[in-house]
């Protein structure tokens, strides 16, 4: 731009020295173009509204359409606008969203790109980097940013038909196969006294007020509360193939939770994995892997000293039912990462202290070794209904099954998809 400044000076010199009025006009034009470029360019992004629209959750294998909307709210056009949407490599499907457009005054444009939910996780979409500039190269480029949004890709869910899990609850079990009881801990309302009603159920205060006998009514106890106890302690798995096996454990957990919620049963999730959104450093904001685009666990300040600590383990999700609760469970499973926290045998007993008596515990872990079986036996003695689901392949699993039977609980080896077949058959073929 030194040359341009030199031209202006030369023009001014000629205009002043020779008093050629028309040269002033040329000076005005040159300075006007320069001033307009400098004035308009910083304002290029001010009246620009950018937005991103997409479904924030996706199931594995789904294609999610993400729409970027750019609205030039000014009357003045934006001659060129370059935008670059950062898309995680694991989600990329088709061309990158790095484009340049020209926007007229008050024009709105939208661009849609697809992302492929190919791997469970919590991904960052964006940020959208915007830049614009002038038409003559007099002004520096202006840059803007649309903050990132997040996409949760749920783990794979394998449809199950019937689990056939045993219940130990005396006052409630699955669906219509058992008798219906009323839970005295869940009062629901009152009704008129009928002959045969227990005197203990009479609501004396209301009866006195209404001068007529009324009895309490209770919610029927038909639910089988289940907690999925997912072991993601890395050292409990075979070092050779721990990534694949732990992913399979998560898929199994998600499938069981989805099935039980679909059966209108309350399900909870307790895991000793790490949720990067809730763990150490979460307050500083999420950190994402540049290669995969997945959420990363922020390194603990004291590094290895923290390895094995249970402080990063997310709080348990207590059993509830309903689709919203299932989404909560699946979101946790989408983000959860394997970490060296606490071995299953040490952790299992303490992890279940918040659960009610009689809850069925689906313990998903690597093997059914002695320590694991003893831990589950302790849970049994504590009044729970533990069931072992081992996800590592074990050709001598009959020994484990016998050991578990001896200790009073059942054990299943679910190391591959076909191991789930008994739970995927049509309902009629499976004994309840």
């Amino acid at each position, binding site marked *: 731009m030194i*040359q341009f400044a030199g031209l202006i000076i030369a023009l001014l010199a000629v205009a002043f020295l020779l*008093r050629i009025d*028309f040269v*002033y006009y040329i000076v005005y034009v040159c300075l006007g173009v320069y001033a307009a470029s400098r004035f308009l360019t910083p304002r290029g992004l001010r009246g620009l509204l950018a937005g991103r629209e997409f479904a924030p959750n996706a199931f594995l294998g789904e294609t999610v359409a993400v729409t970027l909307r750019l609205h030039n709210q000014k009357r003045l056009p934006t*001659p060129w606008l370059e935008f670059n949407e950062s898309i995680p490599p694991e989600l990329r499907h088709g061309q*990158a969203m790095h484009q*340049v457009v020209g926007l007229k005054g008050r024009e709105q444009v939208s661009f849609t790109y697809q992302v492929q939910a190919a791997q469970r996780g919590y991904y960052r979409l964006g940020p959208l980097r915007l830049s614009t500039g002038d038409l003559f*190269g007099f002004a520096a480029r202006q840059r803007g940013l649309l903050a990132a949004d997040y996409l949760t890709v749920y783990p794979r869910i394998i449809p199950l038909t019937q689990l056939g899990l045993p219940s130990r609850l005396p006052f409630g079990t699955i669906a219509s196969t058992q008798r219906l009881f009323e839970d005295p801990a869940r009062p629901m309302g009152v009704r008129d006294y009928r002959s045969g009603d227990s005197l203990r159920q009479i609501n004396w205060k209301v009866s006195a007020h209404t001068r007529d006998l009324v009895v309490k009514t209770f919610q029927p106890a038909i639910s089988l509360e289940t907690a999925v106890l997912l072991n993601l302690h890395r050292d409990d798995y075979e070092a050779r193939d721990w990534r694949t096996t732990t992913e399979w454990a998560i898929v199994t957990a998600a499938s069981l939770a989805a099935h039980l919620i679909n059966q209108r049963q309350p399900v909870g999730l307790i895991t000793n994995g790490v949720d990067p959104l809730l763990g150490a450093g979460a307050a500083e904001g999420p950190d994402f892997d540049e290669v995969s685009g997945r959420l990363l666990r922020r390194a603990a300040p004291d590094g290895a000293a923290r390895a094995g600590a249970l402080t990063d383990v997310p709080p348990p999700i207590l059993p509830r039912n309903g689709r919203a609760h299932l989404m909560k469970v699946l979101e946790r499973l989408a983000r959860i990462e394997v970490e060296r926290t606490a071995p299953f045998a040490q952790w299992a007993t303490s992890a279940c202290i918040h659960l009610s008596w009689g809850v069925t515990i689906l313990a998903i872990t690597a093997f059914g070794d002695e320590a694991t079986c003893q831990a589950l036996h302790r849970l049994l003695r504590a009044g729970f209904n533990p069931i072992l689901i081992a996800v590592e392949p074990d050709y001598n699993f009959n020994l484990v099954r016998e050991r578990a039977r001896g200790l009073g609980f059942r054990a299943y080896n679910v190391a591959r998809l076909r191991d789930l077949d008994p739970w995927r058959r049509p309902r009629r073929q499976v004994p309840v």
Partner: protein
Amino acid sequence: MSNLYRSLLARRVTPAEEAAAAAHAAHYRADRWTQYAIRPLLIALLVGALLSGLLLVVEIASGDGSWQALLPLLFLVALEAIYTTLWLQHPDRMILDKPVYRLAELVFILVVLRVVSWLMAGADLPTLADLALYLRNPGAFFSYGRFLPIAFLALLTWGLSVLLSSIFAQLALSEFEIRYYTQPPVRRAAWADNQPIRISRGNLVGRFLVIWVYGGVLLLFFTALSTLALDQLSMRFNLLALARLGLPPQMLVALLVYFLAGLWLLSQARLAVMNAHWLLNGVVKNASVERSWQRNSLLLLLLVALAASLLPIGSTLAISRILNLLIYYSMLLINLIATLFALLVFAVFSRLAREGAQEAPERSEPFDPAAFLEGMEQNEAAGGSETLTFIFSSAVWTLLIVAVVAAVIYFLRERGLIGGDNRQIKQNWRAFVAWLKQLWAALRWRVRDARLTWQERLRIAPAEEATAESPTARPRFIRLNALSPREQVRYFYLAAVRRAGERGVPRRQSETPLEYVEDLKANWPEAEQEVEQLTDAFLKARYSPQPIEKEDVNPVKETWRQVKGYLRRRTQPPADGAPAEEDAAPGN
């Protein structure tokens, strides 16, 4: 990376990716209007404006008003240089882009200029004596008819045009760059050896800016020269006293064109730089960018030019007066110092002169070129041999003619204008003829379309006019199935009205359909219901915005047939059957 591996990598590109790459590349290829019309024209205007300033100064200095007539010629030379540069940028012709070819081009231009300058000088065909003179003295051939100054100006124009167009040709994305950088990454990795060399486009823009700025300063210099009054200059040379004498209109236009074209070209250069930046970074370019860029830059320039025209001009500004004062006193100081220095030098030299006083040289005669040439010829005639002169000049001419003919043939043959099978010309001609045919067909189609549209619109009108002029006239060439359902219903009613008119119950101009239906019912009481139905259908078709479907037409058609049957029963019109004054136009 082995070649086999690379070729395997390159094959992994899917057809969808191929298509995306092709679409991506299409947006980076410069718009043909910009490449072949706007940009060359702007460069030619820029060069033309600069040369126009020079020509104006020469015109003022020489007092000959014909110099400005050279401007179109120089403009053509500029265009020729620009288009040749563009032509040479094609990958198939890059091999020709050598100094030899450009020299041949220059010789061709000079030959054309020689002819043009001859014609401009108004000379007849050369006589034998002239030819003999040119044979003896080749210099006389070239000096005739202002050829040398014209050639100099043309050379200047050509050089400047080639320089500027080369800059813009390099700034534009080459086909190699577009092909390489629009490929998917896998293929790009496979073609790593073919990666185009990166050009520093920022430096090229800087070069253009420098040329434009220096050209601008030169034009300002010409402007300043064009405002000088030479008689004043001869009396007293005082820079500050050079009052503005008003700019000649040509200079004004040249200044305006030069700076506006330069600014627009600057914008074009910026676009080229951004294009390269986007291409190299894999940015998908939207088709709107190029259009938006051209439109906005032109609009901004025009708006600024308009706004600037409303601003006060230089000498009316107070700041300008203050600056003038400052400059005046600065110049006065410099003048004083210079005078003192001159006095000092004069004193030293006068002292030296006094010491070595010599006789003043005789005043020389003014230089007369004609007398000088005549003297030279006389000297040659006296001193040298006539035969030797003839041999020498013949050799010069032979060499010159051979060189010129070779250069012109080389230039024209490579352009495909002579020699070979003239495939390019034939191809261009065929394309031109095809374009003309296409244009003619499009025109015919449009005319036919317009005719059909008007016929459609006026379809009812002929029936109306015919009824008005002659009650018995029938509309012709109406294909009922070609009409829309709405128009079919209207046709049935109007046909019934026409028949009723023929039977002596015409519809008066002032009569509405609902009034007319009473007349019909009075005359054909047996058809009361049908006539009412037909009228209702007409009113709905004429005034209701509701759509009329094809299924609605059949009942109306049936009703119309029944009405027609009733109307036929009265075969004789009444005796006082006046010409129908009906207005069966759809407008009622």
